């Protein structure tokens, strides 16, 4: 590997190049991707905020940069963007904590 780091912001610009090695699938993916983010039952801004939250959950630095820019362009402010990230974080935290019911069940089974 030529680079000493895994993530380079410049690589985001090469995203479109994934079609070089599998064009039909890439074409379908990008067409679908474009359709997903169009204004529909949800506004473009709401979709950008969801994308920002998911980007934090999957911890994708490219997505975080891209959807921070997108949220700002679509009129979201800092407060809304941070609330979106808290929603993602709350689900992550909650999804761990809810498993504690299993721990509690198992503990109760094993103890007097």
């Amino acid at each position, binding site marked *: 590997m030529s680079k000493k780091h895994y993530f380079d912001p410049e690589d985001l610009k090469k995203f479109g190049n994934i079609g070089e090695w599998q064009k039909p699938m890439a074409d379908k993916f990008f067409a679908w991707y474009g359709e997903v983010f169009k*204004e529909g039952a949800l*506004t*473009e*801004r709401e979709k950008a905020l969801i994308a920002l939250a998911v980007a934090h959950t999957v911890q994708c630095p490219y997505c975080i940069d891209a959807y921070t*820019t997108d949220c*700002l*362009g*679509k*009129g979201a*402010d*800092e*407060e809304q963007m941070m609330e979106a990230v808290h929603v993602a974080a709350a689900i992550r935290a909650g999804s761990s904590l809810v498993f504690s019911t299993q721990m509690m069940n198992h503990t109760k089974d094993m103890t007097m």
Partner: protein
Amino acid sequence: MSIHQKTKSLASRHSELSDTFFQLKVLNGKEVTDARFPAFSETIRQAGFPDGRLRPTRIEIFQMNVGKLCNQTCAHCHVDAGPDRKKENMSRAHFEKCLDILTRYDIPKVDITGGAPELNPHFRWFVEECRKLGKHVMDRCNLTVIVSNKKYHDLPEWFAENKVEVISSLPHYSALRTDSQRGDGVFDDSIKAMQMLNAAGYGKEGTGLVFNLVYNPTGTFLPGNQASLEAEFKRQLKRKHNVEFNNLYAITNMPISRFLDYLLEGGHYESYMQTLLDSFNPGAVGGVMCRSTISVSWDGYLYDCDFNQMLDLKVAGKNHLEDFDLNALESRDIVLNQHCYGCTAGAGSSCGGQVA
């Protein structure tokens, strides 16, 4: 509340960028940066505009920049306006010359901008004279001037009496976003002024008094969909502040003057220009405002638009109020340069918002 100014004018800082020729050198990769981008005229030639030229359609808007004096010093201001710019303000003689031209020619709309145009002592007289001529008058009001001094508190009622269309900048419905660009305290004063305009009937259904807002990005990104932004501004301003308006115009920041300074200082110039280029929309070229506008400076010179005015790129041919010739102006070639990419990016940009 008094405004805590965001910055100082380039002129008062004696910045090299206060020299318009220096700005043009930067835009063409000959100063500060060696980044060069394809010539705008070549880009539109490839998009189908013969010889890379742009010609007017019909001049419908007589836009006057009546001075650089302003009670605010916004970080992105393309005019480099501010409280220190006291010398560059239109004289009564030049106003009278404008009135003479508006009497002679069928130009239906008068678009008054600055600075804060209301600070010019001849402003009210001139607007009243234009209304007597039956012209549609638009005032680009920064809002805070209304609450800045007791003598401007009556502006909303006076605008209403004269049926002036009020167009005001509000870059965001959040105080943080707005104040980060326009100065601390601007948002609160803007809301007070908007409430006064609403009380005078502006932005209210059935009054015929039009109150439009201008959104521009508070950073290095492009504006999103104008209709979507308008819906969100309406929802948030009504919900939080019980304020109403008619339309929202989304305008792209031009890489000139104080916004150019901001781009260069932060190391964003090249990426911003590349974003404008990558977003070039051939469909936006035909609708740019320079095709239907003539822009007049405080000292009576003529320009293709307010941005060309701030770069001192005068119209081709006779270029002063004294030699005003509508026929010649309507057949001129519009002066183009690299900043023009700002008006053709994405959905396009003009003083009336997105164009494509």
